């Protein structure tokens, strides 16, 4: 990883999507223990994973991690905190008018 250059890595992962009444969730786990750092981007390869209603789908996939450059990682660490409003739930989208 350079100061300004991005690395691209491929890692195996397990995707779990639950589209159920008692749990609506979707998680990605890197099965080789790869770790995500601030500013990294992740995309799971392959077709969209669609769990029909009432189903839990588990799939082994490959994910591509676009590693942030050192500078970008530092920047995200310094500025990420200011996106905290996204953690707050106000029950409304950001659209000013519908």
């Amino acid at each position: 990883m350079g100061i300004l250059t991005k690395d691209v890595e491929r890692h195996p992962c397990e995707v779990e999507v639950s589209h159920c009444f008692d749990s609506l969730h979707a998680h990605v786990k890197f099965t080789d223990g790869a770790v995500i750092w601030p500013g990294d981007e992740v995309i799971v390869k392959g077709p969209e994973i669609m769990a029909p209603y009432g189903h839990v789908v588990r799939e082994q996939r490959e994910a591509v991690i676009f590693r942030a450059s050192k500078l970008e990682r530092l920047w995200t660490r310094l500025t990420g905190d200011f996106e905290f409003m996204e953690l707050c739930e106000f029950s409304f989208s950001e659209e000013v008018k519908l």
Partner: protein
Amino acid sequence: MNAHTPKTHASGATHTADATTVEEGLAIQEEQAKFDSDTATAVAMQNTLLTPRFYTTDFDELDAVDVTPVREDWDLLIAQMQADPNKGHFRKTDDWDHVDWDGMEPGLRKEFIDFLISSCTAEFSGCVLYKEMKRRGSNKDITQLFQLMARDEARHAGFINDALREAGVAVNLGFLTQKKKYTYFRPKFIYYATYLSEKIGYARYITIFRHLEAHPEHRFHPIFKWFREWCNDEFSHGEAFALLMKTDPKLTSGVNAYWIKFFLTAVYATMYVRDHQRPAFHAALGVDPDWYAHEVFTKTSKLSQQIFPLTLDIDHPRWQRELVALQKANADLALAVQRKQTLKKWGAQARAARAFVSLLLIPSKANKVPASTRMEPVY
């Protein structure tokens, strides 16, 4: 939607909310899915892609948290969450009245669906965040807490999703195969933001619930009947974050007191602005958004006295005036952006910034934090 007769399973459960094992839950869902695919083909569903946010944090710092100073309260709270008093609650019962979606006034329908989708996204994002913290951490106390909170959030999301499906809105979880960027929060900012988010969430839900108890004629959708148990989950999540903050007095003193004031102001102001963007929704509930905001701020301030060293002076003469100014500037800003009027946009941004700074500069009220942190939901 659940008009078919569900098959009864091993423990007698006919609903996933009652299932005691994963296998049983899956079997019930399987049954439901057979029925469901028929419905889905018959009704053209509007597709909505959920777009949660992804975060990382300093997981080493999180692992280093030692709950020993609050062990007694901590164990009680975890035991209560493990006992899962709300298991089986988030299901449709006979109380789930028929919803006349087609007869709903279009403006209200639009705002209400927006309310459901954004609530669902918020619950979902909480679930993603908590699960990530559970997975990356190695401190048993911490991972256990986040696992339990992820369970609740996923359950709430599932319940709202069900209400959305009834309205003909299908939630699409296909976001995983789209590129997503991970942002970063320091653990203490996660504590402040999620603590406030959970407590203000409780205050918001319970205020609506109590209002509709007194004015049932305004209850235009049955989901509001579930708000009390729902917000009790939010309440206990907030309790957990309060205890986490209690483990380290530095988190709520010194320069961090200024951060807390900033968070409180930003959260209250954002809530005020966003609520005022949804007039039809509040009119249908029979709620004046200004009254509602003040109610919620009062309750949240009272609750946050359990851990925060200060409360905002929401009765200060400048408070309401600047909130109104901020809301006006925000609406003008959106209009200027839409009409591509750069000068007006800058003007509105400057007015919004001024109003926010003015809110921030209102002197806060000092608060002496009680020795015992734990509270019970009493509103």
